[in-house]
Each structure stands twice: as C-alpha cells, then as structure tokens.
C-alpha cells in the first residue's frame, strides 16, 4: 500500500500515527486511572465508572454555557475551571455513593458489581430525565481546536496534546499522593491488612470513602477532558467502560504501573492495527491478544503481593 508515496510523505504519516497512538494511550490512562484506584485499593468493581465520567462532561457543558452567557471574556480559560468543578462534583457524588451503598457491601464483592451496575442505570436515567435524552454539544474555546502544524505535512492535534499533558499531571499527582503522602501510606496500609491498619489507629472507613471519592473525581476530570474528543449524552459513559475495564484487568488490578503499561500496550496495538487493517478487525485482534495473554497470565501484567 505504500509504493505510491514518497519517503517524506511516509515519514510524516508514521510520525502522526505514532502521535495518534500516544493520544490513545493518554485517553486510556486517563479513563482507567480512577477505576484502577478504586478497584486496586478497595477491590470494588465500579460498573458506574462511565456515569461518573459523564457527570464530569455535563458539568463541563454547564460551565461552558455559564461562561458563554455571563463571562464571555473569560471563555478561553473556562475549561480549567470546568475540570476542577467536574472533579468536585464527581468526587462528592462518589463519596455519597460510598456512604450510602458501597460501604455496606465490602464483604460481598459480587453484590457490589450488581449494585454499581444498577447505579449506572439509575444515573443514566437521571441524566436523561434532568438533562434531556439528546446529546449536548460542548463548545470549546478557539485555542483548543484544530491542530498545530509542526512541518508542512505533520500536524499535531491540540486537544490531543492537551489530553496528554493532563494525563501526565494527574498521573504524577496520583503517584505522589499514593507513595509520598501520609494519606497514601494509610491507603496502602488498609489495602495490605485492613484489620491491622484499624488496630494501629487508621480510620479505615474514612480512608475508604476518600479513596472512592478520589477515583470518582478523576473519572469526572476524564469525562470533562473527553468532551473534546467524544459525545456528551446520558449513555455516553457506556462507550468508555469496556476499554476501561480492559486496561485495568490487563494491567493487573493492584498496580498503578500495571495500568500504565497495559494502557500503553493496548493503545499501541490497537492504533497500529487500525492503520493496517479495518477498524472492526483491529478491535477483534486486540481483544484476542488480551484474552490470550490473560489466559497465560490471569493476574494481569503486574501484581503486588498482598496478604489476604
């Protein structure tokens, strides 16, 4: 398929294709991070993850509307405020859900699966009843649209760069929080041995609530960022959930590093295959690869040894 093109053309296509793969990688990390925290640290499978993301997207939509109508001069920077609000809204809802529902189900992991799936249906219908069944279009400030010409034939998507930057910031923040802060020590202590952690004076219930809230908050930020590349509607969250679980399970549930490695592997495989094959076929082969690797290594790519 390449015989008709010059070397320069091919070169620039490969650069752009590599960039496309990196964007996909950032998107995967961003969507999986919140789920990985909740799943990894608490063992809760949050099927409503996509709905927390869409809450962030709706918050972004309303912030954009607010700025358009009342503060048009500051429209250029509304997105940063929207992301903070999305984090707060999704995090607060997450903590409320943890308090009302999840904490009663810690000893019944399969029931949490069912309960959070039910929660996702409830949230979808609430979005539909409150915000209407139609999709909404989130308007972006001018500087975030279009692409940056690097050379004559190579262009980088600005929103792609934005997602990459955001992913790096959030990943570093989470890593610092988990491995360098007092709170992170408490979380890891609870993961390793809940009873012992309680015995040495860690308020395990509080740790659980904040962990769940943090995971949901990050989902909210992800949803907010994805308004740049995807749709915002009551059921849009469903578009991301399968890929999200794929990344988390493939990476090995308890490891941040595993999530990142798995997002990288899957995104590169998918984006390369998509370029050479058709879209559906690429997806089939990617899934097939993941299934085979999980058969050989059921615990995922990376595992932390935990005393159960």
């Amino acid at each position, binding site marked *: 398929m390449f015989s008709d093109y010059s070397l320069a053309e091919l070169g620039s296509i490969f650069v752009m294709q590599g960039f496309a793969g990196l964007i996909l990688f950032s998107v995967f990390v961003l969507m999986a991070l919140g789920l990985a925290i909740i799943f990894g640290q608490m063992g809760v499978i949050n099927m409503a993850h996509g709905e927390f993301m869409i809450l962030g997207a709706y918050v972004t939509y309303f912030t954009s509307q607010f700025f358009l109508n009342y503060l048009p001069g500051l429209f250029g920077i509304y997105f940063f405020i929207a992301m903070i609000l999305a984090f707060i809204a999704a995090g607060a809802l997450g903590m409320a859900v943890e308090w009302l529902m999840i904490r009663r189900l810690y000893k019944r992991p399969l029931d949490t699966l069912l309960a959070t799936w039910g929660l996702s249906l409830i949230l979808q219908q609430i979005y539909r009843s409150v915000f209407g069944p139609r999709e909404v279009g989130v308007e972006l400030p001018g500087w975030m649209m*279009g*692409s940056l010409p690097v050379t004559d034939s190579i262009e980088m998507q600005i929103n792609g760069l934005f997602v990459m930057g955001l992913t790096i910031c959030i990943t570093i923040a989470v890593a610092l929080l988990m491995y360098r802060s007092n709170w992170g020590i408490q979380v890891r202590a609870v993961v390793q041995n809940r009873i012992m952690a309680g015995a040495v004076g860690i308020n395990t219930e509080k740790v659980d609530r904040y962990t769940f809230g943090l995971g949901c908050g990050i989902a909210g930020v992800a949803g907010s960022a994805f308004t740049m590349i995807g*749709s915002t509607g009551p*059921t849009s969250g469903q578009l991301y959930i399968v890929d999200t679980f794929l990344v988390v399970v493939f990476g090995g549930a308890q490891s941040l590093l595993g999530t990142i490695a798995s997002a990288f592997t899957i995104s590169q495989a998918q984006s390369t295959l998509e370029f050479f094959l058709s879209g559906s076929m690429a997806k089939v082969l990617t899934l097939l690869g993941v299934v085979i690797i999980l058969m050989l290594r059921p615990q995922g790519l990376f595992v932390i040894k935990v005393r159960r």
Partner: protein
Amino acid sequence: MSSNNDNHDKFSGTRRRLLQGMAALPLLSTTSLFSGSAFAQAPATSAVNTTGLAVTDTEVTVGILHSVTGTMAISETGSVQAEKLAIEQINASGGVLGRKIKFIQEDGASDWPTFAEKAKKLLVNDKVAAIMGCWTSASRKAVLPVVEQYNGMLYYPTFYEGLEQSKNVIYTGQEATQQILAGLDWVQKEKGGKTFYLIGSDYIWPRTSMKIARKHIEGHLKDSSVVGEEYFPLGHTQFNSVINKIKLKKPDVIYAAVVGGSNVAFYKQLKAAGIDLSKQTLLTISVTEDEIDGIGGENIAGAYSCMKYFQSLDNPNNKEFVAAFKKMWGEKTVIGDVTQAAYLGPWLWKMTVEKAGSFDIDKIAEASAGIEFTKAPEGYVKIHPNHHLWSKTRVGQAQLDGQFKVVFETANLIEPDPFPKGYQ
C-alpha cells in the same frame, strides 16, 4: 394474508373471511377495490370497524412505540414529538372519520425484544388501529413478525437499508437507493469527486448502504473508484488512525455513515486533525440536525448531508410545520429528517382511513397505494404500491448554527426501490 387473528373475533366468522378474501385479491395489483366505495361519510362504528379494533363512536386508539429510555432515546425522542404533534393537529381539524385519535404510548427501551413485546401488547390488549413506531432496523425486524401475525399496521419513520416490504408496514423514510444514488451523482458532478473513502459503523444499515454506494461508484459513475472502505464497532471513539489513513490516501470524497456517539467523536477528531471540511468534501448519510446538536456546528460546518428533509427547507408547508413544532416542544428543539418522516405517519394513516372508509387493517393496507399528502413539510409525497414513499432527495451543507443550507434537490420524486436490481 395468512394472518387469521381469531383472538379478536367478535364478529361473524363468515363475514370476516369474506372481507379478508376480498382484500387479499387486489393486494397483488395496484387497483383499489375500496377507494371511493359506499361508506365515505362518518359512518357507524360497526361499519368502519369490522375486526374489533379499539374504535368507538367518538374515539380511535393508536399506539406510539419508541424508545424513551436507553441509548436510542437520543434519536427517538424527536419522532415521538412529531407523532404527538401530528395527532394533535389531526384532532384539532376534526379527527379521523369523525373520531378523535387517542394514543397509547409504550416504551421500547432501546431493547429489541421489548419492542416486540410492546407491539404485541398494543395489538392484542389495546387493539390499536395503527402503530407509529420503531427507529432502528433491529427494532423494526423484531416488530415485523408481530404486526404480520396479529395483522396490525406499522408506520416506520427511519431511512433504512431497504430489502424489505410488508403489507403491514408503511415506510415513511427513504430506502437506501433513494438516499444514496442521487447524492453520489451530485457529488461527482458538482464536486468532481472521483475517489471515495467509505467509512461507517459496523452493522446492517451502513454495510448495506456502502454496498449500494460502492456498486454505484464502480458501476455507474465515470472513472470513479473506492480507495478505502472501513467499518468501526458501534461506540468506537478513537478515529485518529483512520484519519491518518485518509490523509495518506487523499480521497476526493469522504463518504460517511457513522452513527451514535461515534459520530460525534469522528467529526470532533476530523476537526482536531486539521481536516478542513470546507476544502475536503465529506458527504454523509447519517447526520441530521439532531446529530449536529451533539456534534456541535463548529465541528461539522462545511460537510454535506444527503437526506430528504432539512429543517431549513423553504416552502410554506415546512414553515408552518416548524412553527407548530417549536410552539409545542420549545424554541430550541431541532427537526431532523426522521422527525419529519415520523410526522407523516399519522397523516398518511388518517388519509388512508378516509379513502378506505374503514379502520380495518386489510382495507388500509389495500388503500395505501396512491395516497398523496400535499401538506407534507418535505413537499409532496405519495405512497408507492410497495408501501414506501415517493420522495425527493436533497443535499444540504452543514452551517455553523447547526442548520443545513440546501444546495441541491432532485427535480423529480424518486421512485422507492427496496429490492434494487444490480445493487445486491
């Protein structure tokens, strides 16, 4: 005609059989036995309703069957709104055969077996005289055996892949050849399109449509070729790789049938990748005003869409329709192709009932061919004996404000051809 629905048999068995037999004969031909027949003026219920439908001296009940919950609610809401508007207008103008239309609304919940179950409920328990409903092909395929078995009448609004025809269904949207061929002819002639890149979601409608498009491009358009054809799973949100491929192949025309959430992602990423739709010709068969609401006008401005109806159509019928629609459902609502087609359903049914002088399903199926609706927002439409509509095809260019500017319309009505020869 094998549908012997004994379950509503309140009337004399012989008479029913006689009527069914009479209705069966002319179905094969286009001549109508009952048109202009004796009972044309608001007659007694016993005369216009011989099969036990829910018709009283003052009321007739129809069913509305769409998804108002689940993924498809996004699309089907507009159809429900249009059908309710049409019913309200018909009632305000005197109803059908002197009877007010009452509707029973059921929710298909974006789940195809639910559609079938609700259709059965409407036909068997509520004995509705007609069903306005379904949206996706999958829901129609689920409902079809039910309306055939219980002898109901379904008015189906969506443009679809064709390859279907039923006594019990009136298709008020376009079938694939009506929507596709004229648009491709136009894009080749006006835009000089010679190389096409086909891209769609991976299910029956885009695949069948692309098959027809490819046959037309390769067989009927001069020196034109397809340089790429791709399908993506429903819900796919990452199009950067295929956009790079499009950049490499530099097709004259991108021909798109991507649906749902993927649609939004596709156009946002095209825009982000620096593909300027005012320079790169893109023709789509899956974007109406409804979809632009989600995509955002600034992301799709410049693209062309091939439909039979656009909200911006400049004719008196449409102006009246748009004003009435906005009055009922709010200033901000938009009206897409399917919404308009859904609006036709109740009106076509009313006119057919009045022509047949009866609510009986067999007589309506029989009388449908040749029904003309001169007040249709899209202009004049007429029911073909194959139960699809004669309609014009139009090309609109998407504008920043989310509306389309009509840039082309076929001179004549296009004949519906659900089983196109040479395109399968």
